[in-house]
């Protein structure tokens, strides 16, 4: 195990030193970069290109871990000669499909936290970054300890748990490119209980997609589409690339239609908005499929590539516009207009469900299945303006089945086949990313004896803090390995300070597109005192627990092999750390690769039936209490600049407040009927509690829904809108569901 003994003083960047141009591939190699710090060259001036050239020399590839898009960027480094020494501007990678040369507001805001964390001040609300490992005392307070002590104790406890036949669960943040080392650790400990509920959130929808088309990634061909249907957008996940594509499509003459309960902030202009109640979009899409059948617009080859199409086609008869209008709460005129647009544009219709907003809510999995069916019916797969089916790379397939480890599975994965990490049965989400509810129940039932996690706050989805407070201490040991200490981290027995993404090199990751991009980030700055890269921590835990730590080298070797296969070298990855690899993608007319049992799109799923979800893809009438006077469906989401998970900095909250984005959004008409005026204080109540917000009356939200922003206000006073949502799982799939919350709204004093 590599130790980083030559610590640099933490504090100001100038003292930490930059690791510019540390482009060594593979974590093992790049660790060397942590000790040798090359100071950046002065950023020459004169002309744009001279500046960029100089900046390139003084920059390093990095990636944003703000969300699962993992946008690649080049961080320019400043030196004393050209201003204050420190990390300068971030230039998004042009080759990265989600970054397309920039970062989003949240990307900048979260990078800012890392920069200030790396500097002397430290991020607000994130205590103890870069300090020594912490061990929780019985009274809940923490004491500092040494790495040796912490690892020894953790190893002992893990061995004990294993000895008692209790398993070690690993919870991984999927927007962590190095999360694979945690998978490796789980594998070394012989654990199948790997949870990666997933910073892209969409595990539910991903499961639905897996059932319908297998382990492929779908990418809407927005560039060539005549009609783009955005199913559920969100300010929180409008990546720069996504916004750019939608805007370009519209300027090119494509019609862009948004299907969502609201038009979120940061949403590019759309030609039409079909305001639907949350969780009902599948009904609209089914009506679309029915219309295509009615109009005889079904694609020629559809029957050949869809399993069970005949039966499904018949079942569509009842999906009339009137039915869809009733189910979705949209007007019949809006539904008809939508259907007309769909029929007119077929097959160049890109159903764009790439914002997880559409994917992590009630009916998300069903919606994803319906999207697959509709695409197949349209014949939209791999045609211009439709949807690309991009095969999953061997590198990602390996991560997904790594924990099973069997040679047979490895072969299947190598062939691009899907190897479930755990066998079928409920909940289905376990197959894709693990169901957090499964994890929580496993701990409470005593099946799980230890938890090692890089993303403790993720637990918030499945259990509230009180439940976690009872649950986590019942474990033999719980370990949080992360850069900060949130509420859930503070409930763990050990808090191990880990490098930030600016301090440790990342494993390669793939951004799926027609031409996927392969990206890799370097370490930008030398680590603060005592923090270690995740790789080291995982190896250290394995060694202390008396199991093999060679998994790390194996992962590094796989990474090398993957890059070599893709024909990539450090130079090719360039200084933005990102390069398009056409050979990993698809071309128009390629036969779509459906990695299902039949090799076709499957409308019927035995696994779904077993798990208690709909057997045939369709619309599961959700528990959508039809909103009535004073009763609303609750929408909760991040703003473009706030965090979905952690508290925003004071500065961000102040900014958001000043821009009046910290308000509850309510349809102006609905508000008026309740006697609510602009800026009025209102009480929002659900079965889980009541909160007071200020109202903003708008025209861009469904009359039956209200929106509350995440992390827009001080959350310590219990004002997180998430507290209004009882944690619960979706039927059959078992992924966390945020949308099934109904609230009442009334004016304060009324």
């Amino acid at each position, binding site marked *: 195990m590599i130790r980083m003994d030559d610590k640099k003083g933490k504090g100001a960047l100038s003292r930490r030193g930059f690791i510019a141009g540390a482009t060594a591939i593979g974590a093992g190699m790049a660790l060397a970069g942590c000790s040798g710090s090359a100071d950046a060259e002065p950023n020459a001036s004169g002309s744009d290109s001279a500046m960029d050239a100089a900046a390139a020399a003084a920059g390093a590839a990095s990636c944003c871990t703000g969300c699962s898009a993992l946008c690649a960027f080049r961080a320019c480094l400043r030196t004393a000669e050209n201003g204050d020494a420190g990390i300068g501007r971030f230039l998004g990678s042009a080759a990265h499909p989600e970054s397309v040369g920039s970062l989003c507001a949240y990307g900048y805001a979260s990078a800012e936290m890392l920069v200030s964390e790396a500097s002397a001040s430290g991020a607000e609300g994130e205590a103890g970054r870069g300090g020594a490992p912490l061990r929780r005392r019985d009274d809940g307070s923490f004491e500092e300890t040494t790495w040796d002590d912490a690892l020894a104790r953790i190893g002992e406890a893990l061995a004990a748990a294993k000895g008692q036949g209790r398993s070690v669960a690993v919870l991984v943040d999927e927007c962590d490119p190095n999360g694979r080392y945690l998978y490796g650790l789980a594998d070394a400990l012989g654990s199948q209980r790997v949870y990666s509920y997933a910073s892209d959130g969409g595990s539910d929808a991903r499961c639905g997609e897996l059932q319908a088309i297998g382990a492929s990634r779908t990418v809407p061909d927005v560039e060539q589409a005549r009609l783009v249907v955005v199913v559920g957008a969100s300010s929180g996940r409008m990546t720069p690339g996504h916004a750019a594509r939608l805007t370009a499509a519209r300027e090119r003459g494509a019609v862009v239609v948004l299907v969502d309960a609201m038009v979120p902030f940061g949403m590019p202009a759309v030609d039409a908005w079909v305001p639907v109640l949350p969780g009902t979009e599948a009904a609209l899409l089914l009506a679309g499929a029915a219309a295509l059948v009615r109009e005889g617009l079904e694609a020629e080859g559809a029957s050949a590539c869809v399993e069970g199409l005949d039966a499904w086609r018949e079942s569509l008869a009842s999906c009339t516009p009137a039915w869809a209008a009733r189910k979705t709460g949209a007007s019949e005129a809006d539904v008809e207009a939508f259907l007309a647009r769909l029929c007119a544009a077929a097959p160049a219709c890109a159903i764009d469900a790439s914002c997880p907003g559409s994917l992590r809510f009630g009916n998300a999995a069903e919606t994803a299945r319906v999207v697959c069916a509709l695409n197949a019916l349209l014949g939209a797969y791999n045609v211009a303006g439709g949807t690309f089916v991009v095969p999953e790379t061997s590198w990602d397939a390996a991560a997904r089945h790594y924990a099973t480890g069997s040679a047979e599975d490895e072969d299947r994965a190598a062939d691009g086949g899907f190897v479930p990490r755990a066998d079928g049965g409920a909940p289905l989400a376990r197959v894709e990313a693990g169901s957090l509810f499964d994890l929580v129940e496993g701990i409470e039932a005593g099946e799980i004896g230890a938890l090692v996690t890089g993303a403790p706050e993720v637990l918030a989805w499945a259990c509230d803090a009180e439940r976690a407070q009872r649950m986590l201490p019942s474990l033999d040991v719980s370990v949080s390995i992360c850069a900060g200490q949130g509420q859930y981290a503070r409930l763990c027995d050990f808090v191990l300070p880990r490098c930030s993404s600016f301090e440790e090199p990342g494993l390669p990751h793939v951004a799926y597109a027609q031409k996927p991009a392969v990206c890799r980030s370097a370490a930008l700055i030398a680590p603060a005192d005592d923090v270690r890269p995740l790789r080291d921590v995982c190896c250290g835990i394995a060694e202390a627990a008396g199991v093999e730590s060679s998994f790390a080298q194996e992962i590094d070797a796989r990474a090398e092999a993957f890059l070599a296969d893709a024909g990539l070298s450090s130079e090719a990855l360039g200084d933005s750390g990102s390069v398009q690899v056409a050979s990993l993608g698809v071309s128009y007319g390629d036969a779509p690769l459906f990695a299902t049992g039949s090799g076709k799109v499957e409308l019927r799923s035995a696994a779904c039936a077993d798990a208690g979800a709909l057997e045939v893809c369709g619309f599961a009438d959700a528990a959508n209490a039809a909103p009535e006077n004073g009763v609303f469906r609750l929408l909760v989401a991040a703003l473009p600049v706030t965090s979905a998970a952690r508290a925003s900095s004071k500065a961000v909250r102040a900014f958001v*407040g*000043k*821009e*009046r984005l910290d308000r509850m959004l309510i349809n102006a008409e609905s508000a008026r009927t309740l006697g609510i005026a602009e800026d009025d204080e209102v009480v929002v109540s659900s079965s889980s509690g009541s909160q007071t917000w200020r109202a903003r009356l708008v025209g861009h939200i469904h009359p039956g829904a209200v929106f509350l922003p995440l992390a827009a206000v001080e959350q310590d006073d219990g004002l997180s809108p998430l507290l209004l949502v009882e944690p619960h799982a979706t039927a059959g799939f078992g992924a966390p569901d945020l949308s099934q919350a109904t609230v009442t709204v009334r004016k304060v004093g009324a």
Partner: protein
Amino acid sequence: MEFEPIWGAPIAMYLFLAGLGAGAFVAATAAGRMAPQAKRTVRAGRVIALGAVAVGLVLLMVDAKGGFLHPWRFALLLGNVQSVMTWGVVFLAALVVIAAVVVVRDLLKKSVPFGLEATGCGFAIAVAMYTGVLLGVVKTFPLWNSAVLPFLFLVSAMSTGVCAVFLFARLVCPNEVEKLAFLEHVHGWLPWVETVLVVALLFFVGLSSEAGAASVAALLTGQWALVFWLGFVVVGLALPLVLHLVQGRVGAGVRDACGAEVHGACPRVESGRACGAVSDAATIVGGFLLRYLVVMAALPVVLL
């Protein structure tokens, strides 16, 4: 965007003190010329003038954070002849210097040349108007951007200045008060003029633009209504007016009943003094609230 007032209480206080100081200087000069026997009052007026203006300037400097952290930057204050603030600084500086010379000469019991005092009065009036012009040239805020404001502030400055001088006289040397009857007469009328000007300001501003109307609404019925009505109108305007009327009668009665020489012993004189003091203090409070409200309630023009 949620609008936050740019300046707060310190600047309102600065505008108020500069005005009060200017008013006090003028009042002291007038008293010194027309009632030279009222020596203590005259001297106090001069000291008040110097003190108020100086304290106001310190407030300005503390609020100007960049200058506070790098005081030598204040040397640049004359850097832009176009700037009203530059001119204000010239006026203020001149007033401070003149007031200081006057006070020193007074304390040294030397005569104060009329020319000096007259020049000082000129600067004092300039300072008083400047406090209004400073805000008045700012087009962003309709509540400020009005030709009425400099005159309103001028009147209020004179009013508060005179009241400060009177307050001192009433509390410390009541025997000098009567010698200042002519000033008392003038200062009794100032609130009336001020009322007319305030009504005019609100009327014109309210009609001028959306933001103007919103600012006026904020004063009359909105966020600032309580301070405006209770503080400024009732305490700052109505109370002095009423007291002035009452006090006039009380005072008159005193003279009839007890004769001119009687001081202190007569309860009616006592209550007349108290009335006057309360009225003066109320006017001073009202003067501050006027600046404060004008600074705080102004809303910017809507751009979109």
